[in-house]
């Protein structure tokens, strides 16, 4: 693909100069400056045609000051001298206007290991290239008598964080994602892909998967709700892991006694090993967190045993230990967040996960998952875009989508098989997971 346009980001040296000047100008005892700048575009399609097509350039300058034991945070979306003065003034005013509050400590300088997350091809992707990609999927769907829907996005971002204790980190990244639902008159299929390099996205591979799934998922008939053996494709596994991270993998959730993580105890089947690693290039790497702390790998569940949780500066200080580099932007009362999740692949080829199942359900993806009970790790949600009955080791027919209400830990406790391959799932808002497909002994569908 020949690029005709390049994402417009400010030169790194200019960003550094801007941050340095802001830090020097601050009268506060401690000051932190975070700059995020992005240039992104998204082409959205429905009914085999493009219906929305957008692009934006924006920047966020976020300043945290600590003055006389009080904290102020302000942000602005301009990167110039008057904006710097304005945002600093507002942050100081907030600190000055309050009586004593809670102070989250700032980290001192530490080396972060650079990770490559940039692609010139993605940064230079043009509207015409996105249209061509989308057109290929729509044309294939149309030829098959189906309708394609979805979105294709490309974007470039730089992120820099510095503080008055000497921290300065800079990272730039690109991301390209495509998701598609293809519908027939009586059913639909789904596929998505994400990559740092847009050239790693194969439109034919995506079209093959989503069209095949849509064709196989026509005229679904209902199946009785109940508890079934299931195969969860990677889309569903990644969503489950994201909810585990949200409810349980944080040191604050453990500290506040609302997490399902019972450290040192066996909480899932021994085929389950989950960790977080922001430096693994096979995920969506980021070398440091939003507090300027270098990322560390955290083993969360090792062969079914809860082994660790993610820390930020606040929770680490409370417990007298080091942050693992999982802090969110200030001000943050939600605690740390594990955003680069990995689940260890197993020994079963994905198509063979169904081989021993007498009667079970194949789930392509989940939809509208919500937490019903955080401590018992119970979630509810629907299946969507390809739910199939498995009989005697074979997928026999599509079934109507089902609602599940299920404890994630109980489901993973019955892990009977894990696929040899994994897939990168880019999160909807933040981070990514690399996960296998799984075969679970029991999963409860309630309607």
């Amino acid at each position, binding site marked *: 693909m020949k690029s005709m346009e390049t994402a417009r980001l400010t030169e790194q040296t200019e960003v550094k100069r801007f941050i340095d000047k802001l830090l020097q100008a601050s009268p506060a005892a401690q000051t932190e400056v975070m700059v995020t700048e992005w240039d992104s*575009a*998204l082409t*959205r399609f*429905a009914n*085999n*045609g*493009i*219906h*929305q*097509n*957008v*692009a*934006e*350039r*924006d920047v966020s300058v976020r300043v945290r000051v600590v003055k006389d034991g009080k904290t*102020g*945070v*302000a*942000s*602005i*979306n*301009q990167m110039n001298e008057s904006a710097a003065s304005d945002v600093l003034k*507002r942050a100081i005013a*907030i600190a000055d206007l*309050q*009586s*004593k*509050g*809670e102070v989250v400590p700032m980290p001192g300088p530490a080396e972060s290991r650079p990770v490559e997350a940039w692609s010139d091809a993605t940064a230079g992707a043009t*509207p*015409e290239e996105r*249209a061509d990609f989308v057109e290929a999927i*729509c044309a294939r769907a149309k030829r098959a008598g189906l309708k394609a*829907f*979805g*979105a294709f996005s490309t974007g470039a971002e730089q992120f820099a964080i510095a503080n008055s204790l000497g921290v300065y980190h800079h990272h730039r990244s690109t991301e390209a994602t495509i*998701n598609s*639902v293809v*519908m027939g008159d009586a059913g639909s299929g789904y596929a998505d892909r994400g990559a740092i390099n847009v050239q790693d996205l194969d439109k034919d591979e995506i079209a093959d998967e989503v069209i095949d799934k849509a064709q196989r998922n026509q005229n679904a008939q209902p199946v009785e709700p109940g508890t079934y053996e299931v195969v969860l494709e990677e889309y569903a596994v990644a969503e489950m892991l994201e909810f585990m991270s949200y409810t349980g993998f944080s040191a604050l959730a453990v500290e506040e*006694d*609302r997490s399902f993580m019972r450290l040192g105890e066996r909480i899932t089947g021994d085929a389950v090993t989950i960790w977080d690693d922001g430096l693994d290039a096979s995920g969506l790497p980021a070398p440091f967190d939003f507090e300027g702390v270098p990322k560390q790998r955290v083993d969360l569940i090792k062969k079914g045993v809860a082994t660790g949780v993610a820390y930020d500066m606040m929770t680490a200080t409370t417990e007298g230990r080091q942050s693992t580099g999982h802090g969110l932007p*200030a*001000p943050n*009362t939600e605690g740390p967040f594990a955003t680069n999740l990995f689940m260890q692949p197993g020994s079963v080829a994905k198509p063979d996960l169904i081989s021993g199942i007498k009667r079970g359900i194949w789930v392509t993806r989940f939809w*509208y998952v*919500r*937490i*019903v*009970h955080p*401590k*018992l790790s119970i979630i*509810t*949600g*629907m299946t*969507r875009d390809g739910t199939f009955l498995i009989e005697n080791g074979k997928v026999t027919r599509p079934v109507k*989508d089902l*609602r599940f*209400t299920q404890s994630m830990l109980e489901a993973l406790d019955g892990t009977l098989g894990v696929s040899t391959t994994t897939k990168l799932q880019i999160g909807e808002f933040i981070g990514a997971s690399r996960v296998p497909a799984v075969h679970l002994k029991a999963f409860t569908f*309630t*309607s």
Partner: protein
Amino acid sequence: MKDLAEAALNAAQVKGAGYADVRLDEHVQQDIIVKNGQLAAVSDDASEGFGVRVLVDGAWGFAGSARLDRAEVEEVVDRAIRIARASARVRSTPVDLGPPVTSRGHYRTPLERDPFTVPLTEKVDLLLRADAAMGAVKGVSIREGSMEFLRQRKVFASTEGAFIEQELYEAGAGIEATATSPDEVQNRSYPNSFGRHQGSGGYEYVTAMQLDRHGQRIGEEAVALLTAPQCPSGVKTLILDASQTALQIHESCGHPTELDRVFGTEAAYAGTSFMTPEKLNHLQYGSPQVTITADAVTPTGLGTFGWDDEGVPAQQSFLIKEGLFVGYLTSRETASVLGQQSNGTMRADGWNRIPLIRMTNVSLQPGDSSLEQMIAETRDGVYMETNRSWSIDDKRLNFQFGTQLAYEIVNGKRGRLLKNATYAGITPEFWNSCDAVAGKSEWSVWGLANCGKGQPPQTAHVAHGAAPARFQHVKVGILK
């Protein structure tokens, strides 16, 4: 701002746009969080920029930038035009916006006290008083209170001659108490869940909540829930408080009547809708007690404004009339497909996003019952209050909700407190089972500031007028 708007529109026309509009937007937001007796966070966020939407050869292009100068306007218009030409290569049908919209005027949210002029100490003191009230209850392990204030100044101009300036204010606040035991986490919040209760208006909206007077009660309820019996499973009469009724309206009526969703433009993300056009004026969506309107004029509603982001004036319309499905939430483009005119529901969540069809104030009209009467008339039922979890399928039919608190109802009387209450159903069956809605004195407007839709994702602030309502033969207690 007017000069930049005119420059953008002129450039778009010169470069070949058949239609163009521009929105310049300045957004200021203050957030305050008090946690466990300490001021945990105060932030002050500002964002400004502009977005240009163009139609070229019947296809859309949009670009936005934070840099507000003439050179950037030219570049952004070029980008939008180029994007629109790319769209036109893979277009299905040319966009028809229907009759031109030439609105002109100014709107400002009515308010008594500008929240940005209220001293920070006054706001923090109120949250600390509420926190102390929760903290006085033994067994409350986490206390949190928050406030949020927003001011948005926006200019909309189009090549059809529309020019609108609006200044919109929002104020919101809420408190939450959490209690834990080895196997339980129970929380109670006031006035609503989702962190806070929010409306259009000034600081008076927050003071009216009297947060400090409710801290002790919700603290006691959170602790009591730890040892309360589990909500039993079965098919029972269900009575919902007004805030949960509001969320039920949101998920099972507001979203499925968005006409862009009906036409498939959210199919790969937020889903589609079972309320397809052939059902319009035919589907008995609910019982005769169910009348649901959409309006952008109700005082304090988060969906209240002067004009939407296509310049269409604020108005009221019926979605459900005495149970019959009679209308959609529409945009200019989608309304013209049905031979209608937009009812003014297009909103973007900032300068860098295109407007989408979003709920305004989608409200269940009050009935003639009361909560007391509904309970008195119920032999075997459950009363549920304040949302805890929510989930609905991609066609907006199969739903399951959980609430923070519930009481059993036995022979017309409120019985034991119940924990982990859930209920589930299918949208038209559920609304057709509605046999009572409380009257005007128990009807209020509930703001939801977390409504997600679109790619890239957008968060809309919407509202629902609702009163307690009763439903028959509902499956409750899905979580055993």
